[in-house]
Every structure is written in structure tokens, then in C-alpha cells.
């Protein structure tokens, strides 16, 4: 089995992930070449202009909200939580794919992640920023939002540490900080690459952030350990964040919210939507920047498989919720679920079922997992479905609880819509700036996929 004509398993795998004749030099050129472009592509300017206008809408709407108060939203009694909470949960959910890809897949030695992890981590950062906007602004008196923090003050006032809302604050804040540290640690060697290739002021800026990295093994040794530990502690962290978000709901006594299935169900949904967003963005980026040989169909196929898995988990949770509502024998609980599927907001429920349960079933077939236009459309449908899931949980549950006398319908206003659209401006402005100035694929890690990076490459194993 040691003839040179026969390719080893590792070589076959590497060839699928980095097709064609790629080597260390071409990988550097191809990835670093994007932020080094002299001329910014016209598509980038078009998208950036669009993102900036949405950002303008965001600033205007949030300004008006702060000026006027949360009454500008469609929230009422009993639907006290409207789009703000839906959007918060939606964005945090999207933010889960980044750390899942960088941390969990790193621990499982899934090196196909090396082509998409930078991308996904950046998406996580901006998605979590968008999410954090909502708890910040939904308090109404935004100038006292620092009351979330356990700061000693002359009023002797402390946050209630026994409340899930404060757990949530700590969880999301920790998640953001750890994701930022993880992202930056991964960037250090790549910033050094950009430093070594740039000239003038750019060299100084990249050099400053590269911290004087010189690629010595005495540095790599500590670096790798730090990276491994970050992956190790991020793994329980990423599973905890959406579990804690779900406890905002699950610790209440509202029928439809008070269930123990919420934490795993929220985490599965979060990973599902996060992969949807990574898919959408990577399909666009690989097209615009001609990186089809680095982010390959093989990668998209694998992401689709994870979407199939998490989509089925979410589907299982939906049916289990129904079963338990019936099995509990609690009339309020049963009503809450019948009302979801057949009540006045039936369309929200069935949109959710279609996008999250029916659509991913196509991914059982390899043909659909490798069909890029199909993947692009489904990845968007996934996130529409996940938005409706939160709509179902927040609005449909609240609008009819125990007493029919307290029921009401909920209608969003123009400000709900404009702030939601505005967060896309925030997200895409940040993401496009990242694409323009930083390497969207980890240069150092992408090279590890090549068999040449293995010091025992070409040796016969006894």
C-alpha cells in the first residue's frame, strides 16, 4: 500500500476541500489578495451604499424611539414583548453558528471548517451586536441601561441575580466578549501576513494589530494551547447562551412557554439559523470574490447536512411540544398549542413549519445539497422560518393566555419594521467593511488542510 500512484485518504480529502493545484503561496495570494485589491469591486460599493442607507434608517428609528418612548411600537397588553424580543432572539440565534463552527468543529478536528470559520465568527460578532441593540433600546429609558450592570451606587440598587433576564445579560455579554477574543486570536497570524505584504500606512496599521507576530514555534506553542482552550470553553458557552435565552421564557408561567424542552430546542434552532446565514453570506462572497476553489461545493454540502440535522431536531421539538401539551391534560397548555396552529395567526405557524421542517428535507439528497441556487434560496427560507418561530413563541403565545377577557391582537407599527430592517444595515455595514479590509478565510488555517503541511507527508507508515 505504499506505491506513490495510490493516494492516501488524507490526500483525497484535501483535494476535495482545496481542488486544483494549490500550495502555500497560492492560498496566501488568493485570500490576502481580496483585502489588498487596489480597486474595490463595484458590487461592494453597491452593497455598501445599500447597507449604509439601512443604517441611516436604523439611526433615525432608534433616535425616534428614544425620543418618543416604546409606545411607538405595536406592543400592547397582553403582548408586552413584540418584535424587539423576536429580533433579539433571532439575531442571537444567528450568532451561534460562528462559535459552533470555530469551537465545536475544531475540537472534533473537522478541518473543512478552516475555510469558513473566520467568516462565521465575524458574522457572529455583528449578529450579536445587532441582538444586543434590542435589550438596550427596549428598556425605554436607554440612558439608565447601565442598571443591568452590578455596579455599586448611592441608591444601594443591585440587579436581581435570581432573574433569568439578568442571566441573559451576562450570558450574551460573555458570549460577545469571548467571540471577540476568539476572533482576534485567530486573526493575529493573518494580520502578520497582511503586514508582511503591505506597504506604507497599511503596513503600520496591520502591523500594530499583528502585535509583532513572527511565526516562531515558541509562539505557536502557546498560541495553539490558547486556541484549544478557547475552543474548549466556548463549546459549553455556545450551548449555554441560547439555553439561557430560552429560560427568559421557560421560567415564566405562561402556557406554551413553561416547558423544559426549551433549552435544547432553542439551541438546535439557533444552530440551524446560524448555518443558514453562513450559507447565504458565503454563497455571495465566493461568487463576488471568485473564491469557489477555497469555499467549495464540498463545504456547502457539509453545511447543508448540519442544517438537515438541526432542522430535524427542531421539527422533533415542534411535535413533542404538541404531544406534551395534550399529554399534560392541562387545558390552558392544550389550548395554547391548538391556537398556534389554528388560531388567528395560523399563517405564522405554518410558515414556520414549512421553512424549518419541510424545506430541509430536500437535503437528504446530494443533488440538492450541491445545487447552489437552490441552497441560496433555502438558506434564506431557513432564516425566514426561524424568524416566524420566534414570532410564534412570543406573539402567538402572549396574545391569548388564560382569561379570554385579557386577549388581544397584536399589530406591529412602521417603527417595529424600520428598526428590524435597520439592524440589517448595522450587520451588513460591519460585514462589508470586514470583507474589504480583513482576510475572510483564515490564511494560516486554510494551509493546514494541505497534506504538505504535515511534517510526515510522503513518509511510509509502518
Amino acid at each position, binding site marked *: 500500500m505504499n506505491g506513490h500512484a495510490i493516494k492516501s485518504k488524507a490526500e483525497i480529502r484535501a483535494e476535495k476541500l482545496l481542488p486544483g493545484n494549490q500550495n502555500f503561496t497560492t492560498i496566501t495570494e488568493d485570500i490576502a489578495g481580496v483585502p489588498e485589491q487596489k480597486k474595490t469591486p463595484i458590487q461592494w460599493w453597491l452593497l455598501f451604499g445599500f447597507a449604509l442607507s439601512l443604517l441611516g434608517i436604523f439611526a433615525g428609528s432608534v433616535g425616534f424611539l428614544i425620543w418618543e418612548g416604546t409606545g411607538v411600537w405595536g406592543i400592547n397588553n397582553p403582548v408586552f414583548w413584540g418584535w424587539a424580543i423576536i429580533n433579539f432572539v433571532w439575531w442571537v440565534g444567528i450568532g451561534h453558528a460562528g462559535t459552533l463552527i470555530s469551537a465545536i468543529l475544531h475540537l472534533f478536528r473537522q478541518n473543512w471548517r478552516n475555510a469558513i470559520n473566520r467568516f462565521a465568527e465575524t458574522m457572529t460578532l455583528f449578529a450579536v451586536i445587532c441582538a444586543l441593540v434590542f435589550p438596550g433600546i427596549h428598556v425605554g429609558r436607554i440612558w439608565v441601561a447601565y442598571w443591568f450592570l452590578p455596579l455599586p451606587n448611592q441608591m444601594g440598587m443591585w440587579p436581581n441575580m435570581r432573574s433569568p433576564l439578568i442571566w441573559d445579560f451576562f*450570558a450574551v455579554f460573555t458570549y460577545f466578549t469571548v467571540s471577540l477574543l476568539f476572533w482576534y486570536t485567530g486573526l493575529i497570524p493573518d494580520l502578520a501576513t497582511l503586514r508582511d505584504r503591505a506597504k506604507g500606512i497599511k503596513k503600520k496599521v496591520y502591523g500594530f494589530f499583528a502585535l509583532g507576530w513572527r511565526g516562531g514555534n515558541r509562539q505557536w506553542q502557546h498560541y495553539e494551547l490558547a486556541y484549544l482552550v478557547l475552543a474548549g470553553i466556548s463549546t459549553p458557552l455556545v450551548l*449555554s447562551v441560547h439555553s439561557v435565552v430560552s429560560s427568559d421564557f421557560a421560567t415564566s408561567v405562561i402556557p406554551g412557554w413553561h416547558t423544559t424542552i426549551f433549552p435544547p430546542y432553542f439551541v438546535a434552532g439557533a444552530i440551524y439559523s446560524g448555518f443558514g446565514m453562513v450559507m447565504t453570506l458565503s454563497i455571495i462572497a465566493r461568487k463576488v470574490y471568485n473564491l469557489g476553489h477555497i469555499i467549495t461545493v464540498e463545504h456547502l454540502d457539509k453545511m447543508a447536512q448540519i442544517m438537515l440535522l438541526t432542522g430535524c431536531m427542531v421539527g422533533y421539538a415542534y411535535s413533542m411540544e404538541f404531544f406534551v401539551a395534550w399529554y399534560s391534560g392541562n387545558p390552558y397548555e392544550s389550548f395554547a398549542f391548538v391556537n398556534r396552529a389554528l388560531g388567528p395567526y395560523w399563517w405564522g405557524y405554518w410558515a414556520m413549519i414549512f421553512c424549518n421542517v419541510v424545506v430541509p428535507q430536500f437535503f437528504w439528497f446530494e443533488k440538492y445539497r450541491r445545487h447552489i441556487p437552490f441552497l441560496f434560496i433555502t438558506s434564506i427560507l431557513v432564516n425566514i422560518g426561524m424568524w416566524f418561530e420566534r414570532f410564534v413563541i412570543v406573539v402567538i403565545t402572549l396574545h391569548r393566555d388564560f382569561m379570554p377577557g385579557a386577549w388581544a391582537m397584536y399589530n406591529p407599527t412602521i417603527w417595529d419594521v424600520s428598526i428590524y430592517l435597520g439592524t440589517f444595515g448595522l450587520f451588513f455595514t460591519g460585514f462589508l467593511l470586514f470583507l474589504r479590509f480583513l482576510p475572510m478565510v483564515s490564511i494560516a488555517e486554510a494551509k493546514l488542510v494541505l497534506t504538505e503541511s504535515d511534517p510526515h507527508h510522503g513518509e511510509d507508515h509502518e
Partner: protein
Amino acid sequence: MNSYGILAKFDSPKSLMHAAEKVRDEGFEKFDCHSPFPIHGMDEAMGLKRSKLGYLIGFMGMSGALFGFGLQSWIHSIEYPMNISGKPFFAYPAYAIITFELMVLFSAIGAVFGMMFFNRIPRFHHPVFYSEKFSDVTSDAFYVSIEVDDPKYKESSVIDFLKDIGGTEIEVLKDEI
């Protein structure tokens, strides 16, 4: 014009690792192997001890957990006990989440800043940067550097040694003036 060390280029991760083994066996201590990406097994090849960073991270994680648990207990039991829905003041099961989050936060800070501390970065000046061609180490080149502080350092013999073990483009690192 002072010299700070010697740099030799190697053509692949494999040859760099064999070179590292030979440099280690020759008894050099102040040397490093530079590569665009981490090379598996290089620590043993260079004879490096296990990184002590793990202990620092463990210490930080435990302090984070203690701080989180202590903060919550102190607030609700000592600083301002407040009766909310008749729940106990020292409601320790409810403190689990923030305790966990702060443990993770402190460990992550320990991991990243500890890594910088052990690596002595940020450090924007280093003898290897005196070399013009060294900049390709972050793309596709592999180098061994031996520093002048090494007790076995003698310029001519080090140059011969590096040539012997397969190094090319050998350069003596000197500052500009």
C-alpha cells in the same frame, strides 16, 4: 553594526522539523523555528517543555467562578437582602448560570492575554525583522533562527552547521547602522 543572530531558510515543514531536531541535538537553546502555520510535533522536535499557560487559565477560571458566586451571594445575602416573591436570599441554584458565565469569561481573558504574556507580544522589534526576506515567513517560507545569546553561538561555526543541516540563504541578522 551589531549582529543579533543567524537565519537559515528551509523549504518545507518536513525539512524544518528535521532541522529543528538537529539543532536541538547539537545543544542550542536560544533558537526558534518560524513557519506560516503551526506544525504538528514541532514542540518535541525543538525539545520545548509543555506550555504553562494551562495553569494560568485554570487559575483565572476558578477566580471567575468564585467571583461570580461570591458577588451574587454577597449582593443578595449581605449588601441588600431584598424579599422578591418570597424567594430565599441565598438562592444558590439560581446563581449557577452567572457563576458559569464569569468562569468562562475570566478563562477566555486568561487564555488570550496569558498567551500574549508567554509570547512576549506585543513586541514590534525583533532581530528577525532586520531580514528583508523574512517577510515571506507568514506566507510560504520556513526559517530557523539562532540567537547571539546562545552559549554555543559562534558566527562561523553556526553558519557551517546550518549549511550542513540543509539550510539555504543563510543570513546574519544585523541592525541597519
